């Protein structure tokens, strides 16, 4: 029994579909009728969710080496905060 067989991941087509829908939604929100700050904030948060999906499902770090998982989660948190600061402090 492969150790990989014990891993449970979402099917790749499902992950892809979620990522595509999220991308279309973020573009629509950013250019839509929502207040600019709210639209941009939503777009950044959606981008963060997309990256988390890629790290967890495509890179398969979700069940992986703990320090690596923490490093990537920390990077995502810092980058998200930097981008949000660009909206709310500009």
């Amino acid at each position, binding site marked *: 029994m492969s150790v990989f067989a014990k891993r449970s991941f979402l099917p790749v087509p499902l992950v892809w579909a979620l990522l595509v829908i999220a991308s279309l939604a973020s573009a629509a929100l950013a250019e839509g009728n929502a207040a600019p700050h709210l639209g941009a904030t939503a777009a950044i948060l959606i981008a963060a969710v997309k990256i988390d999906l890629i790290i967890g499902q495509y890179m398969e770090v979700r069940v992986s*080496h703990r320090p690596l998982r923490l490093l990537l989660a920390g990077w995502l948190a810092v980058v998200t905060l930097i981008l949000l600061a660009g909206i709310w402090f500009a």
Partner: protein
Amino acid sequence: MSTSPANTSSNTSPGFSGPGDSGVWFFIIADMCAFAVFFLVFIAGRIANPELYETSRQMLDLRFGLANTLILLTSGAFMAQAARDAQRGLWLKSRQMMIATLITGLPFGVSKAIEWKAKFDHGLSLTTNEFFTYYFVFTGIHFLHFIIGLGVLVVLLQTATDKHKAATTRLRWIEAGGAYWHMVDLLWIVLFAMLYLLRAA
């Protein structure tokens, strides 16, 4: 041998249990940190001069940014499937998925070239203003990573069915190369949000 399942973890690095190779992950993390500094510099500039950044942002074509995002997401999906097939010892199928990764990823380069040409045709360049300096430098560096990723994919195509290499070695290479390709993808997601979607009031 070539069709037998990879029955063990791909990783042989002591103390590292993640997918791929610890050395490649070190490079990926370092690269991502460098890009985080880029993002910080850009945002600092945006906070200092929001009008300039918003006016410049409106000169970008959202359709290119979105198309490039969808291209990389699709290419990344094939790469993820290639790694999963390799984990099951389906080397030929893994190779086919990597060919699909390459084919679906190539339009990113074409789209980027068309977008940059359109910008240059409109008189926009590195020296137009601070926003466009960052735009061309960051997307240019990202494009360089994309080109390197294409080279990695070509090497992986040969590795996937190389019977002279152990299954664990092949799997480690495919997972490491895949992680790099996904890094190119996720960095673009941040660039897309930061350059195209940060609408100001």
